[in-house]
């Protein structure tokens, strides 16, 4: 799974970051010619530890997505009712043969090494697997990979790419989640953020929700109240209870105005 001949070697930035995180491993890593995907993966693993603070360099490094096709490593013997599918994931064409039973979520996680999307319930009741398909937020756990032929899938790993004006930086929603502490354990976070990003588009299109008072009004861009954001984000459960912070993060990006963070120390 790690062999990826199309992936470039580490950039200087990445080497620097790696050295900061795992100085003792750097020589070995460089000697064995580790590729970018492996590097990015390692960054998230136990070996790395956590570098305090987020330097701009770190943001850039962490948020570039790997490119190039993955080898289809499963032999056809292990795939039942194989369906060949070609689709785009984070802008990159992917082609593979899947068991007809395989969900998009399991395909991303088990076949494409995109483990950002999470399996919280596997039944469409938690939202942790939310990804954006053809511009719409959907649940990868209830989407068969076989139905994705020709579709374009965006996952958390691809969100930082392609933001107008800042192609290599975090998506503003990711930055806002960081600032507002819109998570604790982080397991629901990729789904929350994908959902929130798509929600902004839905607001621009003027789509309504169950709490929208003026349902009969002509669809057009709407300013969402916190109540609207809450309702529209209710498909993404957060068991840590970061909801107020999630709403603040989304409101900040949506309204374009800073949302105040409040706590008090008294006495």
């Amino acid at each position, binding site marked *: 799974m790690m062999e990826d001949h199309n992936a470039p070697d580490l950039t200087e930035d990445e080497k620097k970051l790696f050295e*900061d995180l795992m100085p003792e491993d750097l020589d070995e890593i460089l000697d064995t010619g580790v590729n970018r995907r492996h590097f990015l*993966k390692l*960054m*998230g*693993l*136990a070996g*790395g*530890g*956590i570098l*305090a603070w*987020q*330097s701009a360099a770190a943001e850039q490094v*962490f948020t570039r997505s790997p490119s190039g096709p993955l080898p289809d490593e*499963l032999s056809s013997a*292990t795939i*039942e009712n194989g369906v060949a599918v070609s689709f785009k994931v984070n802008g990159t064409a992917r082609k593979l043969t899947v068991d007809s*039973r*395989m969900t998009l979520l*399991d395909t991303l*996680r088990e076949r494409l*090494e*995109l*483990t*950002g999307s*999470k*399996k*919280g*319930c596997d*039944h469409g*009741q*938690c939202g*942790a697997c939310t990804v954006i398909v053809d511009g719409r937020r959907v649940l990868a756990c209830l989407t068969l990979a076989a139905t994705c032929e020709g579709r374009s899938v965006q996952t958390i*790993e691809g969100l930082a790419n392609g933001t107008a004006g800042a192609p290599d930086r*975090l998506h503003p929603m990711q930055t806002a989640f*960081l*600032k507002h502490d819109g*998570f*604790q*354990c*982080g397991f*629901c*976070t990729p789904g929350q953020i994908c959902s929130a990003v798509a929600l902004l588009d839905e607001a621009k299109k003027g789509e309504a929700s169950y*709490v929208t008072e003026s349902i009969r009004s002509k669809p057009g861009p709407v300013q969402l109240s916190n109540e609207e954001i*809450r*309702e529209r984000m209710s498909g993404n*459960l*957060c*068991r*840590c*209870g970061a*909801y*107020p912070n999630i*709403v603040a993060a989304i409101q900040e990006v949506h309204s374009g105005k800073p949302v105040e*963070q*409040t*706590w*008090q*120390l*008294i*006495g």
Partner: protein
Amino acid sequence: MQEKNKVTGTPVSRIDGILKVTGKAAYATDYPVKNIAYAVLFKSTIAAGTIRSIDTGPAEKSPGVLAVITHKNAPKLKTDGGIRGGALLQSPKIEFHGQHIGLVVAETYEQARHAARLVKVEYDKSEAKVDFEKLSKEAVLPEDKEKADAKRGDAKAALQNAEFKVEAVYGTPIEHHHPLEPHSTIAEWQGEKVILYNSSQIVNGAQNAAAATLNIKTENVRIVSPYIGGGFGSKGGQWANLVLTAVAAKVVNRPVKLALTRQQMVNSVGLRQQNHQKVSLAATKDGKLTALAHETTTHCAIENEFVEPCGDCSKIMYEVPNSLITYRVVPMNLILPTYTRGPGKSTGSFALESAVDELAYQLKMDPIELRLKNEPTRDPSNGKPWSSRTTVQCLQEGAKAFGWEKRKAEPRQNQQGNFLMGHGVACGTYPAHQRPSSARVSLNRKGNAITARVELAAADLGTGTHTILAQTAADALGLPLNQITVKLGDSDLPPAAGSVGSVGASSYANAVHDVCVKLTDELIAKSGKQFFVRPTAAQLMVSENVADYQTRVDAKPPANADQYSSHSFNANFAEVRVDIATGMVRVTRFLAVTGAGKILNPKTARSQIIGGNVWGIGMALTEESVVDPRWGNFVTRSFGDYHVPANLDIGAMEAIFIREDDRVSNALGVKGIGEVGIVGVAAAVANAVFNATGKRIRELPITPDKLL
């Protein structure tokens, strides 16, 4: 709280945040282990009896299947090695519905999941004890000595003679932790050694339990668990799935991944037990408490006892001369109950603080005033002085910030359109302890650039551990925060306490602080110089031209800590809006005021408190696991049936911390905030519902049907 030039106490964004918002943080099943096989568990469909026959033939023949493991062919495991809840496939005996009875390992997840459905099992059923309403009459004194009857004075007599009293039974249902990440493991054997990528609140506990159960040396088990997708107690003790993954990997001689399904979570990893709590309060006309009795009846597993301490808050919250705290427990054919956020205190405070509210109403006294009148100066349960106690400040500051004076004392006086508004208050507490933890710090200098690496086998389940430890180390070493690397969640690191019982922050931060001080001391000693002003470790690395230096400490709680009673305290204020027609309740506003010692990072601390509050709101309004008393199965097996709060359930949340400098609890004065945030919340909401509607709901959750 913020000291000059210190990063500790400042609202730093979490240092692991960037990995979490980019999807790069690797949870247990995210590791790209090569040549992996997939395991799926299958479970009993009866609650009591034995397996008569088990036909694994069709499953074994199913495409891609590598092995089917049941009690008939499972390797022998030690059943008392520290794994909770049994279900280790060691016998045909069934003790609860949904007990693991085997697992399938296959090339793909799809193949394993399908084959697990093909196993045919026949049982010899015996009568299952699953109806708590009936069985509660058979409950007996727990074996746990901590749960012996605790009497002070004569509460029963005082109650008989009381002018004002409340006697009521408060019911809380079974609840499930349901962390968003189901319990998951990847097991990879390397010779005699097994690496378990797992989700563990107690890294060393998981290591010990796995090693003992597998009958291998502790050092041959490595637990890797840097990110945990929530735990809330369910990932404190380790359950059979951890060890069974290792067993499966051994059997198929390949790495194996096993994730519980959401449905399997209800009978695999513990639960919060159902409680009947009878609380009796007696008081004088002017609100002096004269008696407090808190009698809890609950259930445990057939073979193992676990009883959450519902009477704990009642032991210490109020000055009362006559006190009675009792527990009775009945074994049932359900999975072993376990620690669940704010164990005992969250559920116990619902009963106690509802009763206090009932008493205040009866006395026509403001519930805050009633509480202030009964504030104890020492711990009433043992006479020890408080290390610090902030209940009074929490109530008074909270009342100011919340606008308590605008509350209507009489119920149903605040109607706004289709809704009745109500306001409620309730207090809470949780013990503050430091546990032994080791830590290692390594400094490295390149020219004048110095970096530090902090390592310990601590856990961060979203609590902010990585961040507060980086802050602690930065200040203790004299380094900027961005030069600190924190590595946790690996049993190869110096052993540490678990992130359980609100001991994480104090245990870890004190260990990290100690090791940084020790390192500085050692560098000073090494220099052989006398310093007028104590230099920082960072300065010493440069002045003494040291390239690399590391040291380790085994930190222990202060020797005299047990001479004091140390707890975090809070006061919770809830505003609810009840739909008059439908009974639907929304918590429109919530304020928690908390005294929890030194707040290392107000941003992450606020999230901890609000997270606890959200749990409390779930407890108050939506969460309930329901057992069918005929068969012992849960009918609430999914997030569609078990309602954890959704975003729209949560209104405006506010957190206030009371400054405290409690160096008695521990050297840094850190008390812990993971649990106290849920304590008192359900009562505050229920009291607000009473204030809104005049209906006293004593059975949680407060679903619409109860308010019609």
